[in-house]
């Protein structure tokens, strides 16, 4: 009422962002964009943590965000490495190229 954003609203926004990330992950064929979508999902969760941190008046959530960001960075590094390796072999970063393993 006083103009301050309600924590639950933040959570809803975070969920929407999560959904966007998920949607992107599911429909985009480019691996780099998929990587970014995963980052988006992780960041939406960060938003969540912040919101709940605010709700509970606790710093735990804020702290967690820091950890998550670190991990996300490491993850994208690994992911990029894998994508590069793939590009070297297949000359492509399209997920349609990687359907050899099946059944």
């Amino acid at each position, binding site marked *: 009422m006083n103009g301050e954003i309600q924590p639950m609203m933040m959570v809803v926004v975070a969920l929407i962002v999560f959904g966007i990330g*998920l949607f992107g*992950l*599911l*429909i985009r*064929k480019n691996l780099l964009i998929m990587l970014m979508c995963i980052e988006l999902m992780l960041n939406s969760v960060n938003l969540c943590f912040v919101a709940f941190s605010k709700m509970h008046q606790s710093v735990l959530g804020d702290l967690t965000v820091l950890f998550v960001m670190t991990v996300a960075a490491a993850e994208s590094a690994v992911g990029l490495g894998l994508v590069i390796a793939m590009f070297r072999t297949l000359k492509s970063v399209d*997920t*349609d190229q*990687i*359907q*050899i*393993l*099946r*059944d």
Partner: protein
Amino acid sequence: MNLSYLILLPLFGFLINGVLYLRSTRNSKKVSAELSGGIATVAMLLSFAAALYNFFLLRQLPAEGQLFDQMLFPWFKLAGMSVDFTLRLDPLSSVFCLVITGVGSLIHLYSIGYMHHDAAPAKYFAYLNLFCFMMLNLVLGATMPHVFFGWEGVGLASYLLIGYWYHDPEKVGAGMKAFVMNRIGDIGFLVAMFIAYKFVGSLDFIQIANTPLNPEMTTTLGLLVFFACTGKSAQIPLFTWLPDAMAGPTPVSALIHAATMVTSGIYLLARMHTTIEASATTLSVIAAVGACTAFISAVIACAQTDIKKILAYSTVSQLGFMFVACGVGFTIAGVFHVMTHAFFKALMFLGAGSVIHALHEEQDVFKMGGLRKKLPITFWTFVAGWAAILGLPPFSGFFSKDEILIQSLQSPHGSMPLFLVMMAAAFLTAFYMTRLLVLVFLSPSRMGQGVEKSVHESPLVMTLPLMVLGVASVVGGWFGLPIHEAHVEEAAGSSGRFIMLASVALALVAAFIAYKKYGKTTKVEQVNDIAREGFKIDAFYLSFFGNGTKNVARWMGNLIEQQVIQRMIRWTVAIVDLSGNLLKVAQVGSSQAYLMMMFLAIFAVLAWFLFGVGQYAKF
């Protein structure tokens, strides 16, 4: 009194001959018929001596207690069922023992000559001794399982001897048929034993006789026992094996399929006569079956051309007479007829054997004729047998057969229709027997040139038994049975005397007709095919039961086993395989498809969950 020698001697004979035979197969030296036959015959003669000795010892016992039990060893004992291996000698079994060992010894002796040229006489004599051992067990056993032991044992020996020349599949088949039909009858014996165990609690004959049962069970028990007897004694419906059993050596036919084994049905009925006679239904069934068998097989016998087949059907017919005696409640008369029949039928078979031997295995009566001069001893002894079976006084058959005829009318269970059928059967008997005699011995010769020249009378070992049996056929009926005397006077009533005269007259008429018809025969006679083939009963059994079983089995094998059970197994495997392949479909290889499915699953879980917990959370 020691009965063990009685049965052990043939057993030893069997073992010695068996070992001799097996040894001969290793060193390929034939054991001569004289040696093996000598051993076997001596064993049988000694056994006969023991039987005779025991018979006289038994006679010395008081009339009420003429019974002797000898327990050899306990057989089996389990949870209330206890059976011992016990030999029991009483007047009934002693008569049978005498017949078996007496006629048996003669036939053993005869076989030495008959089997002289056989490849392995030791085997033959081993089987023959085995048969006698089993037969003695059958008549001496004090309990049903013990009798069953002998019962199956004689069936086995019969199988082995019918299929003795086993390189001929037809003979093998005949043996198999005999054994299987006997076993069909054995089901009756087995179930009778189960019933006896259930309702009497013991399988000892005395216990069974002394324990009153309710009427249904008495009837059932009696009928089951009778069913067993129809198998062993070749009565309707299980009589078709006996004519085929003639595939065996002729002495075997004489011993097993005329004198002894086939009469074990009568023995069993006599042994269990208390139970049998306690039920009028059982009695009438037995009498009806016996009369039908007697008549039908007599008709069939009239149409046969094989000398042994004629005798075989005659045996079936005579057994029918005996069963009628049992069926009208005069088992004793049946047993008496067993004894006389043993003499004259064994005699005729041996005579037939002598003829066949002389004619080099020729069995068709229309290819014989005029043998009276060539085989004088055989002829005259055969005539004695013929007179006996016709029931001409004073031959033995007259006493036993006429008593049966009289009883079939006069006994409380007898009746006029029964009597008339029996008279008809007696008439036919006289007819076909005369036909046989005439065709073989009296009519002009129809033998081939080569055969006719080489015909000669058999050696002494073969004619001696013929002569002994010929004498027995004449005098065998004069003394009656030791257990029998009480009934003789009854037979001498005025109507009885009339029946005697009538039957003798009838026999003579039949003999005359046969003589007129066949006395001048010079060529093969055209006979009714239906009758010759035994009214196709055998063919019917073969196609209905034999092929029926085969077809059911094949149907089971193809349809149930292959199409249902094995297919069920295959289908189970196929279903598992198919479901594996179906479940594999989801594994499309695209990571985004995987992600899609995973997240759908997550949403599904969450949705279901929230809904579900909401349901629970209400409380």
